[in-house]
């Protein structure tokens, strides 16, 4: 008995020690998550995340740019209405944009020098330029040259904003050239279904690149010396650039704007603490301009839509209906089935606009007015208005009920006395720019609101009244603004606190939300 036990002990000992240690311990392969991914897998996700980020940028622009105001019944808006921003306000824009840029950078790194992946490389490069412009326009100098290098540079230095603009323009040229070389080569991998922006149409990618480059050069306002101010023959976008991976009424798969302001996938109300701003509403309800067409396409109960001036908090302020005032339908306001409508929210299946044809035309019009392009500014201006009608009339499935072109003509006729609509009445360059930017302001309402906020800061259009006691139709500045600027508006967002904590030697110091301006700002 004892012998058996003794042998058992020795036996177990040999058995266990004899087992290969290495084999026993080599079990650290991850069964839960991928540890690599191809460009085809990263691109659709990166584009879709860009769309989500643009929703956040839209909210930021809509708050600051006079499209949204606080709704009745809610309190605690704090810096959102006082403009006394701290480093926590809008910090998400910074982190989510850099996070998204890393995905594009990964595609570029994986495809660099590989001719077969030219289109992926170019698409990622264009989207990287798009993302960095969003950052510069919100923060001015940002890490660019040193950024997105992972552990190779943990504290990236900040690049001068003008230098970034200059390089982004070159990057867009390079992307167009990469696509052209891809088209000339053989065996190039199509973007195919990975391209949830242009469905694999590389010509539209090139047009998008040209339009982004135009946006950079128009916005630079003569303050940047670009290497190349000519544009490739592919032209500019004439249709809306919409990202749509297959948005649907499903958990986390709804159009992000619908999810934020309309209804959740299960039909519960989305955020109800914001309603339309009285200021922008005056461009529809006849106070400044008469536009029952687009007003009715966007707003619920137009023209009796509830509006507010930012900052006014008392119990007379309208509260938001289920589905918000930006969901115009009066027929179906049941959360679980609502949607399929015109305007800015449209429905859970709608694509998310990255850059609309209207914006493209208004950029071109200004380009012509400022001598960056040749062409007919009036035609481009009118095309911009028509394109805005077309986008707003469109349903989620891409069909367009009604007649946007005819309604746009009626709109121009109804307001033919206004130089803001009738381009012929805008004679000076300044008046023309005001007309273009104001129409762009109307066209970007809750579409790409941040672009309108950028253009306001660059041009100070649409015109607002700065005198004390200005009403909510005269200015979109908050009634409880603590800003010390003449227009009572802040000039920029602060760098997020994380930069102060984790990149403190590089982050620019002494930034003020009331006096520090983006380099192109007026």
């Amino acid at each position, binding site marked *: *008995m004892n*012998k058996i036990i*003794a042998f*058992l*002990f020795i036996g177990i*000992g040999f058995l*266990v020690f004899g087992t290969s*240690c*290495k084999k*026993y*311990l080599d*079990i*650290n392969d*991850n069964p*839960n*998550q*991928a*540890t690599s*991914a191809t460009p085809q*897998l*990263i691109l*659709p*996700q*990166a584009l*879709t*995340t860009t769309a*989500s980020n643009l929703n956040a940028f839209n909210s930021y622009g809509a708050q600051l740019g006079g499209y949204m105001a606080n*709704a009745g*019944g809610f*309190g605690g808006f*704090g810096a959102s209405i006082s403009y006394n921003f701290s*480093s926590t306000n809008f910090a998400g824009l910074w982190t989510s944009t*850099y*996070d998204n840029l890393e995905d594009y950078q990964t595609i570029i790194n994986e495809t660099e020098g590989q001719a077969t992946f030219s289109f992926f490389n170019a698409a990622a490069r264009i989207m990287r330029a798009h993302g960095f412009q969003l950052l510069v326009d919100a923060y001015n100098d*940002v*890490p660019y040259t040193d*950024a*997105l290098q*992972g*552990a190779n540079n*943990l504290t990236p230095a900040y690049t001068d904003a003008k230098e970034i603009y200059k390089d982004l323009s070159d990057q867009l040229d390079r992307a167009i050239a990469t696509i052209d070389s891809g088209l000339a080569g053989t065996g190039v991998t199509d973007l195919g279904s990975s391209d949830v922006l242009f469905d694999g149409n590389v010509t539209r990618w090139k047009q998008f690149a040209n339009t982004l480059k135009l946006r950079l050069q128009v916005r630079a306002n003569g303050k940047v010396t670009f290497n190349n101010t000519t544009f490739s023959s592919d032209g500019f976008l004439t249709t809306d650039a919409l990202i749509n*991976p*297959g948005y*649907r009424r*499903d*958990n986390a*798969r709804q159009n992000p704007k619908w999810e934020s302001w309309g209804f959740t996938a*299960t*039909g519960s109300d989305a955020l*109800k603490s914001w309603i339309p701003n009285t200021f922008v509403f005056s461009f529809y309800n006849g106070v400044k301009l008469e536009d029952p067409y687009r007003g009715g396409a966007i707003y619920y109960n137009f023209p009796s839509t509830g509006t507010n001036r930012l900052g006014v*908090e008392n119990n007379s302020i309208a*509260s938001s*209906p289920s589905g918000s005032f930006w969901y115009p339908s009066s027929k179906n306001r049941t959360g*679980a089935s609502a949607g399929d409508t015109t305007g800015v929210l449209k429905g859970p299946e709608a694509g998310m606009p990255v850059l609309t044809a209207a914006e493209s035309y208004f950029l071109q019009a200004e380009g012509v007015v400022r001598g960056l392009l040749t062409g007919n500014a009036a035609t481009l201006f009118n095309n911009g208005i028509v394109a805005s009608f077309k986008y707003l009339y469109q349903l989620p499935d891409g069909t367009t009920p009604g007649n946007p072109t005819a309604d746009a003509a009626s709109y121009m006729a109804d307001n033919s006395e206004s130089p803001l609509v009738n381009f012929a009445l805008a004679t000076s360059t300044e008046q023309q720019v005001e007309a273009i930017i104001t129409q762009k302001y109307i066209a970007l309402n809750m579409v790409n609101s941040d672009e309108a906020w950028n253009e306001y800061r660059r041009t100070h259009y649409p015109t607002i009244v700065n005198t004390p006691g200005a009403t909510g139709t005269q200015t979109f500045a908050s009634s409880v603004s603590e800003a010390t600027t003449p227009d009572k508006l802040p000039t920029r967002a602060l760098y*997020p*606190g*994380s930069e102060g*904590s*984790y*990149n403190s030697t590089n982050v620019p110091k002494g930034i003020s939300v009331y006096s520090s301006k983006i380099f192109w700002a007026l």
Partner: protein
Amino acid sequence: MRKIASLLSVLMLVCALAFGQNRTVTGTVKDASGNPVPFATVTIVGTNTATQADASGNFSLSNVASNARLTISATGFAAQTLSASGNLSSIALTRSEGQLAEVVVTTAGGIRVRQKELGTTTTVVKAESLTAGRAVNVAGGLQGKVAGMQINATSGGVNPSFRVVLRGQRSLTGNNQALLVLDNVIVPNEILGNLNPEDIEEVVVLNGAGAAALYGSQASNGALIVTTKKGRRGVTSIGVSQTTTIEEVAFFPKIQKSFGAGGSAYGYDVNGQPTFSAIENQSYGPAFDGTVRPLGSPLENGLQDSAVYAYNDGHFKFWEKGITKQYDVNFTSGDVNSTFYMSGQYADVTGTTPGDKYNRASFRVNGTRKVGEKINITYTAGYTQNRYDITNQTGSMYANMLNMPSNVDITKYKNWKTDPFANPVGYYNPWYQNPYFTADNNRSNQRNDYLTGNLEIRFTPLPGLDLVARQGITTRNYSNKNTVGAFIYSEYSKHTESSSKSDIAGTVSDGSSYKTQLLSDLFAQYNKDLGDFSLSAIGGGQWTQNQAKYLGISATGLVVPDLYNVSNGVGTPGVSESSYKARQIGVYGDVRLGFKRFLFLHGTVRNDWVSILAPENRSFFYPSVDLSFIPSDAIETLKDSKVISYLKLRAGWSKVGQVNLGNTDNFGAYYLLPTYSSSASGFPYGSLAGYTVDNILVSNNLQPEITKGYEGGFDLNMFSNRFVSTLTVFSTKTDAQTVTTRVSNTTGFSNLRTNTGQTQSQGVEVTAHVTPLRSRDWNVTFGGNYTYLDNKVNSISADLPRLSLATYGTDGPGSYAVAGQAFPVIMGFDYKRDPEGHVIVDQLTGLPTKSDTISILGNAVAKHKLGLDAGVKFRNFSFSVLFEYRGGYQAYNAMGPELDWAGTGYRTAIYNRERFVYPNSVYIDADGKYITNTNITIKNGNGNNGFWSDGINRDVTSNYVTSGDFWKLREISLAYDIPESVLNTTKVIKGIRVSVQARNLFMWMAKDNYYTDPEYSDAGNDNNGIGLTGIGQTPPSRFYGATLSVRF
């Protein structure tokens, strides 16, 4: 084997020749109850020849002359001298009087060692002390009883979780909790909350890294060695007991009692008072006036809710009296060859949160069996199942409740199904749900089954040599179902002013998981006495495997109401799956050398190989050494001292490697390669997949953290053990911390996992007890334990001055590790201050300004901990009491901003809602000088549109950082044993004990703490970011109850 044995006997024979007619005697030493007394010393009177009994009390002594007399001595027992030729098979020793610090304890590896041989600090908590307060949770029963140990509750509720940390925190972000060893098997810490305290024989607390050689690197945080009860030879008894405990809320946040709903946002009345609002949740309205005022909008049928506009204590009545019923039964028996212990416990708990229920049933079988002369088998098996039926919305309920003005009697809204004013449709507050509805509509059902078992075979081929094989298993089987009921509001209620009322979609989520740990040990132990020297050596190996799998599935938009099944949802169900496996091999050696029983040198070595590090880094080695010296046995003058009865000097040094990756759910597996996620931004969309680069930069070259530490101290007993004390000074430093640090997002990533930084923990642990009265009827002992702890972060890395541990919002206020500061510190926003610390206010508005960046606002680790206890025994009465104090630290109370938002916060009314000068403030005059502010008042002392509810108050973290100091009456109990003379008449009943006991009966907080128990940690069990209390925990409770136990 037989050959070796005979060779050894040949050697002994040679020695024996000198004495002629000598023989070998064997015997067994037992106590009065028949339990073996381990390690008794057996000396031949008049010689230097002695031996030591083994752990089972067996001894063997050769060369004993037939007429020799033997002295058998053991610590804690009176020595006995008897003839070597007598019957030695059952030598019964009687316990000597007095409390002795020096006893035999079961330490690492199940090795029983005399405490005097230990060169490191060891604290023994015996069963009677552990269960004095009848805590359902073992951790609750340990609170305040051990120097150097800090126990924090990390949740309230029906089964609170506890975080047990010894000697402060070492790892910045890794595990700092003490290792839990149950019957020699390492088990997850959650087992502590699922053990039947009645099953526990003793808990041996190893404050330092002393157990690391035998249990591996996890023991670098100290260890709790829990030994469950075994049966006793020759004693058969059955015990039953019943305990009923009542739990009630003992501390409420301090609220203002003067103002009700409304605020300046609604305008002012003719008297300048802010206007009342019937629907407002914020209490910034006019002062209470005792009139009846409406509540909410009229219902669709025109009915109007109302309340008297005066303070009502309904807020406090919301929390109910919880009742715990605990039933215990145990059976113990034993004969010459085997012992048997069996127990069962059922605990049924209702909590202070309305509707929260919990029950736990546990069952245990322990036994030993002797097979032949050389084989001992030990088995232990414990099975526990618990069931929760609770709400998972305690935090939001609490917030809902605080957002009810204090004139509203909350308890009126209990019957929301039948009462139209309590139903969500008609409930007066459009912004915050009825807390009773929240509790009923958000349920969490969880079930856990735990099995822990251990099987040990000990083979003793020859005296002094043991070969031990041991297999342990701990497994947890878990499932849960969380549900949210669908609720459809009426159109009227949604479209009156109640714009925040929105339909609630029904959701259900199900999860299931298992987690299994296998632990195999194989070691040899050799004990030998060589004249003045003794040797005890252990060598062995250990294999650990941890495996777990987690599945989760959820559905929203339930179609058929109340059918809580994941197939009943709309849209794509949410699914998740993860599995983990990690392994470790350890090889160790442990040698203890004794000289003349007063000097002991102990050294250990261990090498580990782990699966979770890269092959080139997976092996690491760590040694330790400690020394124990007993002057009271070594120095002649001390031996006979009337003053000093026992003095031990001890010192130890150790180095331990610990791989701090991951957590107790994933064991740190798969942390070395970057990952790509497939579910970002809603992916996949049908057949379209999309992946994103995850945000953590990983290093494939991670190394173990290395902790080096030393400790030294003494144990001193005086006046026949009427004074018992210990003192220990310790210091540890931990280098190459494995941390996941935040990095600038502009790198493309948010975090970097790397080895960097050093922490340090230094302190003093003292215990002292005095027994002034000891007689046949009386025994009075009092004393306590004190810990001084200096826990610091020495460095993190050159680029990173600080590391966030637990924060509210990204990079917001919270608990941080900061180089050169206490570990951790509370950081957050403060007001802008002048160089002397006065708050700078605006010269016109009188308003202060929030600082731009977060700064250090307090030290979150208690510098001083004190436990004071007393025990009085008078005849059949036993009384014990325990107080605990913690001090020298601060806490951030995340509840504060919520209270001030709601306007129920006490602070909001300290200026009676009038204009006020910000205290201790200065303004800057035209010359840029700081001028003391005595007259610039803040215009609006109201909230809602004024100071209190605004970010300028609520976002300033320092407003809610309070002293964490507290005193608690931790435990108090009184027990009475029915005298044996009475029981003897029954002939069946051997003992009856009745007792009343209470825990946390009273607590005294710092004056500025209006909020809650600073002992809570909002960050959870596995997070080192202590110092935060939140709204997710129910208010602190006191427990009191009574027990009846009967032994047959």
